């Protein structure tokens, strides 16, 4: 009886081995075709640009004969997979989408291919001087080189209920610096928020504004807009050379935080836990008077749900205006707007760098971006106006669908992404510190002064432990918008 069992087991093992061998032998040999079709992998995330771009991928594949695996994953997954791939020197990802503050990290670590030569070589196609310098400065340039091409740029603008303003007799905020804009100060902004708050119009009781309190990132994005809007900065001197990371964030930071806390009083109390999108969704609900927030929300609030077709409660009832500024400020004084967004970079370990470059050129080109702006899909319609090129702001078809484009265009001039959120590798740690204290202050657990005491202490510890203080240990670069504008022009000339 025991022999039978042994025989049975042996038979099974033999069959398994035979099966595996057959499968291996019969697998089709790898075809050696003369023209191998290249597949490139793009690792992106599902910010608004992703949806129309995803719909247009077949056009790219058709035109260039390159297959594209266009992934849209979650924020931390983009970072995790990109960093893992880079650490392992893997060619698995060809194009990676880069958030504004990752560029410095990746560039310093040698994880992005510098694009200057490629831009110069293909300048006819790329048209580098068509890119808005402030955007390139904020999203793509580090230590004088261009590492990525921006694909979606975010500023911060004021979205307001024009019907409510009319009802209450409030003056519409300026849409252009050519208008009378001196009156649109932070004090005025706060005054308007207070005026709207609590009023009932057409059966809806309004909150003045809606804040964003989730930490670490959302609250810091909101608050740094107030910081830069008041002329504040994080460090003594950055990004202009010589870099000096003495912490100066408290100087205007306290005022920014005081304003933030005031505004929170006139905002739904639950906004202390709001993520980015919560504020937009709330505005779209229809009980918020004013929202100063990232520009994608200018179009996102038209649909009640993210990337699902529908009409929100505020369609046709809101307008977009410039951000407020400190008393006595004039254009050219100091930047007052935060800049963020996404750009596309090439993995230096990729085996298909040329094809990856083709993709990046295509995705950031005038034609593609215009199509993205006008596209309708199963995700809705007209859900992309984060344009990075001058030419797109002048296109009549786009202007018709996104009437705030002229305002957005003018706002870039007064924006600076590296001052509102310094693109240093230590950014995330500092953001985490800020987020905690700001959130605590918002919850009323600490005072403004206590918050900044803590912030300063922890900032200094972190900066010291990471060799930024007392003297920055690495090479510096005089990083100005003028330099970037110049650089782009030079590349355009060849």
């Amino acid at each position: 009886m025991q022999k039978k069992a042994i025989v049975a087991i042996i038979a099974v093992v033999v069959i398994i081995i035979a099966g595996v061998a057959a499968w291996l032998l019969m697998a089709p040999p790898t075809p050696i075709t003369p023209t191998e079709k290249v597949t490139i992998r793009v690792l992106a995330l599902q910010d608004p640009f992703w949806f129309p771009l995803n719909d247009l991928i077949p056009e790219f594949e058709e035109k260039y004969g390159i297959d594209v695996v266009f992934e849209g994953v979650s924020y931390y997954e983009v970072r995790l997979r990109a960093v893992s791939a880079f650490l392992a020197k893997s060619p698995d990802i060809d194009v990676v989408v880069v958030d504004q503050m990752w560029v410095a990290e990746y560039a310093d670590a040698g994880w992005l291919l510098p694009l200057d030569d490629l831009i110069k070589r293909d300048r006819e196609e790329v048209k580098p001087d068509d890119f808005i310098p402030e955007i390139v400065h904020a999203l793509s340039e580090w230590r004088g080189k261009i590492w990525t091409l921006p694909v979606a740029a975010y500023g911060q603008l004021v979205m307001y209920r024009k019907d409510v303003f009319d009802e209450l007799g409030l003056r519409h905020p300026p849409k252009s610096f050519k208008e009378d804009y001196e009156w649109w100060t932070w004090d005025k902004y706060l005054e308007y928020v207070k005026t709207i708050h609590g009023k009932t119009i057409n059966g809806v009781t309004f909150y003045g504004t809606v804040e964003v309190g989730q930490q670490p990132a959302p609250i810091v994005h909101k608050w740094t807009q107030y910081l830069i809007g008041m002329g504040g900065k994080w460090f003594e001197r950055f990004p202009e050379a010589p870099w000096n990371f003495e912490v100066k964030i408290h100087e205007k930071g306290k005022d920014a935080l005081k304003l933030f806390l005031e505004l929170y009083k006139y905002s739904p109390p639950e906004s202390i836990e709001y993520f980015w999108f919560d504020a937009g969704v709330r505005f779209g609900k229809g009980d918020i008077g004013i929202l100063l927030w990232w520009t994608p929300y200018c179009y996102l609030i038209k649909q009640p749900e993210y990337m699902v077709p529908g009409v929100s409660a505020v369609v046709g009832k809101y307008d977009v205006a410039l951000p407020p500024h400190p008393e006595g400020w004039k254009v050219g004084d100091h930047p007052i707007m935060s800049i963020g967004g996404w750009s596309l970079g090439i993995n230096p370990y990729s085996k298909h760098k040329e094809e990856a470059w083709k993709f990046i050129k295509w995705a950031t080109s005038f034609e593609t971006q215009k199509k993205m702006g006008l596209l309708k899909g199963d995700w809705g319609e007209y859900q992309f106006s984060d344009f990075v090129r001058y030419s797109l702001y002048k296109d009549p078809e786009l202007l018709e669908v996104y009437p705030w484009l002229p305002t957005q265009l003018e706002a870039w001039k007064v924006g600076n992404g590296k001052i509102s959120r310094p693109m240093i590798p230590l950014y995330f740690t500092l953001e985490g510190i800020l987020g905690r204290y700001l959130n605590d202050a918002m919850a009323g657990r600490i005072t403004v002064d206590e918050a900044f005491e803590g912030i300063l202490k922890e900032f200094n510890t972190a900066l010291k432990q990471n060799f930024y203080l007392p003297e920055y240990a690495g090479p510096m670069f005089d990083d100005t918008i003028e330099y970037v504008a110049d650089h782009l022009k030079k590349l355009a000339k060849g």
Partner: protein
Amino acid sequence: MKAKLLNYLRYIFVGLIVAMFMFPIVWVIMLSLKPPEYNFTIPPSFIFPPTLRHYWWSLVDPGYYNKHIYNSIILSSVATVMAIALSAPAAYAFSRFGFKLKNFLMGWYLGLYLAPPIVFLTPYYFIMKSLGLIGTYPAIWIAFQIFSVPLGVWLLKNFFDEVPRELEEAAMLDGCGRLRALIHIILPVGAPGFIITALFIFVFCWNNLLFPMALGGPEVKPLTLSTMEHFRMIGVTWNYIATGSVFIMTIPAIIFIIFRRYLVRGLMLGAAR
């Protein structure tokens, strides 16, 4: 009679418990059927015109979740089979033998369960990269073992412990070899234990998020990842999260309902003694 009242209370209590625990699940199912305008009403809407369009989007056009459902099933089932194959012999050894390193090994197996999963992500990436397995099923099957095997060993050992030693000792006294005793005597009696262990391991693999995130690629993405992707920084599509959640809940639930006899029988194992 006091007993009848007690019984009544018992039924009410259990009924309430089941209702409370089922409620979020029912609510999510409702969310998956709601038109988006009803997602955030004040007060929350229990009555609404249901729509299948979210399921249409999920399963048909563009059939977004189809591949992910398939992936989840493949990832979890094969990993479970691997885990059982690896842990059963060890569990048997721990149950039936006393040997020198026994306590140390058992403690070590258990300790692995304690390790924060994050510590494994980057090193495993390197390992899988050098094996050329990034973005493939085997990478995740292997990674899943790090928590499945300890769990399997502990659960199976407990189930083996409940099978009286006398059974196989008697068989061996009758002239059976140990292996035969194992196959013919232990397995049938311990089958419910195996099934329950397999079910639990399956569910833990099914619910896992971090390993597929770190080691996977688009071709092997499971449901947990793809559902969570709708919870973005810049916007959330709740209805699609709801349909994804329903799929995540349904398939293990179906398996549990199919095997519920074993669930109860496994639980009844001791009483049948």
